[in-house]
C-alpha cells in the first residue's frame, strides 16, 4: 500500500504541475489603412477580458493580445485581395483547455481597435471572455455576436454610420447587455440562446424600423424601447411569463397605442421558455 500511496501522491502532485505549465506572451499587431473598402472582420477569443472600440486615425486595426501560448495561438491575418481580416485566437483553440488557461489568475486579454471609416461585416466569437464592446460611430453592416460563458456588454453610444442589415446574437450560458441599440441602425435582430438573461436597451431613439426574432430559454429576454417608437409583440412563452404593460391586444399580437403615429417601429417575434419576456416601452 505504501508505495502505491506514495506513487499516487507524487503523480497527483507532479502531473498537474507539469501538464499545466503555461507560457504567456503578448503580441501587438496593426495595419495602416490603405482604403475604405468594405471588410469582413472575424474576431475570436476564448477567455479572459476582451475590449473592442473604434480606432480613428490611419490604422485599419490595432490589436494587442495576451494569451497562454501553450493552450492557444494568436491569429492576425489580413487578406487584402478579399478584404478579410481575421484576428484573435485560432478557431481550433476555442476549447475548454484554452478557456481554462485564459481564465486563470494571470488571465488572457485582448484589446482591439477598428477603424470606423471602414464598412465592416463583423463577427465576434467570444467563448468565455468577458467582453466590453463599443461600436458607436462605426460602419457596421452586419454584426454577429457569439457569446459563450461570461457576461458581455455591447454598446452603440453613437449612431452606426452604415445601415446594418442584421445583428445576430447567439448567447450561451453568459448574459449579455446591449446598450443604446437604437443607434445600431439595424433592420433585423436575431437572438438565440441565453441562460443568464439578455437585455436589449434601445436607449433614447430607434433610428429605423427593426424586427427582433428571439428564441430564448431559461434566462429571459428584457427589451427596453423608447416610447417614441411603436412596438408590436408576437410572443409565445412556454413555462414563462409575459405581461406587457401599456400594450393592446390585437389578434395574436400586442401593440402599443402609438403604432400608427410612430416614425419608427419595433416588431418583436419571441419564443421563450422558462425565462419570460419583458418589454418596457417607456422613456423619451
Amino acid at each position, binding site marked *: 500500500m505504501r508505495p502505491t500511496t506514495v506513487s*499516487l501522491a507524487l*503523480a497527483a502532485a507532479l502531473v498537474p504541475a507539469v*501538464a499545466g505549465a503555461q507560457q504567456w506572451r503578448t*503580441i*501587438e499587431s496593426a*495595419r*495602416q489603412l490603405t482604403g475604405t473598402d468594405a471588410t469582413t472582420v472575424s474576431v475570436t477569443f476564448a477567455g479572459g477580458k476582451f475590449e473592442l472600440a473604434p480606432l480613428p486615425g490611419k490604422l485599419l486595426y490595432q490589436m494587442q493580445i495576451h494569451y497562454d*501560448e*501553450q493552450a492557444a495561438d494568436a491569429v492576425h491575418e489580413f487578406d487584402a485581395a478579399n478584404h478579410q481580416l481575421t484576428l484573435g485566437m485560432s478557431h481550433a483553440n476555442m476549447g475548454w483547455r484554452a478557456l481554462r488557461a485564459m481564465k486563470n489568475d494571470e488571465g488572457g486579454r485582448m484589446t482591439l481597435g477598428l477603424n470606423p471609416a471602414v464598412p465592416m461585416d463583423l463577427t465576434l466569437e467570444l467563448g468565455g471572455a468577458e467582453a466590453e464592446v463599443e461600436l458607436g460611430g462605426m460602419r457596421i453592416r452586419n454584426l454577429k455576436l457569439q457569446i459563450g460563458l461570461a457576461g458581455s456588454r455591447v454598446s452603440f453610444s453613437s449612431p452606426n454610420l452604415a445601415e446594418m442589415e442584421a445583428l445576430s446574437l447567439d448567447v450561451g450560458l453568459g448574459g449579455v447587455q446591449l446598450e443604446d441599440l437604437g443607434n445600431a441602425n439595424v433592420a433585423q435582430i436575431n437572438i438565440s440562446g441565453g441562460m443568464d438573461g439578455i437585455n436589449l436597451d434601445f436607449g433614447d431613439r430607434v433610428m429605423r424600423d427593426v424586427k427582433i426574432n428571439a428564441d430564448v430559454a431559461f434566462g429571459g429576454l428584457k427589451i427596453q424601447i423608447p416610447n417614441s417608437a411603436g412596438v408590436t409583440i408576437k410572443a409565445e412563452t412556454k413555462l414563462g411569463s409575459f405581461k406587457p404593460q401599456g400594450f393592446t391586444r390585437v389578434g395574436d399580437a400586442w401593440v402599443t397605442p402609438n403604432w400608427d403615429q410612430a416614425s419608427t417601429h419595433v416588431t418583436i417575434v419571441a419564443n421563450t421558455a*422558462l425565462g419570460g419576456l419583458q418589454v418596457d416601452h417607456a422613456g423619451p
Partner: protein
Amino acid sequence: MRVASCSLLLTMSVLSVPIAAQVRVKVAPPAPPAPAIAHAQAQMHADFNDRGAWLDSLDEGELKLLTDSITLLANEIAKAQIAGLEAGKLGSLQGRLGALEGRLGALHGRLGELQGQLGRVDVRVGNLPQPRTAELRHPLSPKELSRLLKQVGSDPHGAELPPQDSINMGNLTIANGTALGRIATLGQLDVFGTVNGDAIALNGDIIVHRGAHITGDALAIGGTVRLDGGTVDGEMRSLDRAVVPAAATAASSSGFLSILDELQHVMGALVVMVLLGFGAMVFAEERLRIVSSAIEARFGRSLFAGILTEVSFIPALVLAVVLLVITIIGIILLPVAIPGMFVLGALLTALGFLAVSRVAGQALTRRAATVSVRGAELRSMLAGLFFFFGLWLVAAVLSWVPVLGSLLHALAFVVTWAAATVGLGAAVITRGGGRPTTAPVVAAPAGSELGWQTPTPISGIAAARRQATNTPEV
C-alpha cells in the same frame, strides 16, 4: 611606403573597431587630407567605457601609448621630410616604423579577441557623416544570439531572417534616400529611407520616420513598432519575445503534452474517487455493502435499471420542471430541486461506481493476504478503482499509437460506462443502499475470516449481510 602602410593599418584598426569588434569607440569626422598625421589625430579621440578600461582586453594606457607613439612618429617623419631626410635618421625612423607595425599586429589580435565577446561589450558607434553618438546594448553572447535567431525564424509570428552574418549588430539607421532590401538588426531600427521587404528589429524598436517606406512587414521583437509619419505596407507587429511556438511544440511534442494533459485528468479523477471511497467507507459503509451485494446478486437487473435511469434522466428532469412550475411552491422549490436532481444523480453514480469497484476489486485481491473485513473492503475498492482508472492511464500513455490508442480509449470508455451504469442501477434499485435487494440476510458461516467471500449461495440468494467478524480491525 612604410608611413603609408602604417597609416592604412591604423586607419583600418580605428574604423573597424566600432563596426566589427563592437568596441566602445567614438570616432570623429574625417580630418582633411594630410594622411598620416590626420589618422593619428583621429585615433586621439578614442573613448573608453565608464569603467575607464576596455573589457577584458585592451587597456586605455596601452592604446594611448600606441596613439602617442604614432603621433610622435608622424611628427618626426614630417620634420625629417622638411629637414632633408638625413640618411641615418631615416633609417632609424624606418626601424621604429617596423616596431610600430608589430604593435599594430598585436592590436589586431586583440581586436579579433574582442570580436568573440560581443555579448559583454557596450557599443558606441560614431556616425561618420553625422557625428552623432548612439548607445547600443545587445547583451547577447553569440550562442544566445544564434538561439534568438532560431526562435524568431521558427516562431510563426516572427519572420524569415536574413543570414546571420547579414544581420546588423546594433542600432541601425537607414538614411533618407537609401533603399535596402530585407533588413534585420539587433537593436533599434530607425527608418528614414526605404526598405523593400520586411524590417526586423531584435531587442529594439522600429521607428518609421516621416518619408520612410517599408514595403513588407515591420516586426519588433522585444520592442515596439512606432509610426512617425512613415508608411508600412504590411503588418506592424510587436512581440514581447520570440518563442518556439506552441504549434511547433505541439508538432514535436503534442503526444507528450496531450498525454500529460490526459494523465492529469485521469489522476485527478482517481484521487477524487479514492477520497469519495474513503468517505463512503466512513459515512456510508452499510449502503456501500448493500449496493455491492445488489451488483453481485442482480447484475442484469442492475444493468437494466442503470440504462433505464440514464435514458430517462433528461425526460424526468423536464417533467420535474413542468410539475414544479405549475405550482407556486414548486416554483419556489425549482432553484433547489433541479440542482438537487443533479446532485442526487451524481451521488448515486458515485456510490454505484464505488460499489462496482469494490466487487471488481474482490476478484482481483482474492488471493491477497487476509486482513480485517474493513481492510479487505477498502483494499478491494482501491484495487477496483485502480483497475478502472488503470485502463484510462494505459489508454493515455499509449494514445500516441494511432489505432491502439483509440481502441484502448474505446475499451476504457465502454468498461467504465458499463461499470457506472451497473453501479447506478444497483444504487437505484436499492434506493441508494437504503434497502437490501433480497429478503433474507444470510449470515456467513461461523469462523469465516472474511464474510464477503462466501455470503451468497449460487442458488440465487442475492446478497447477505456480513456477519461480525472476530478478526480485530485495524
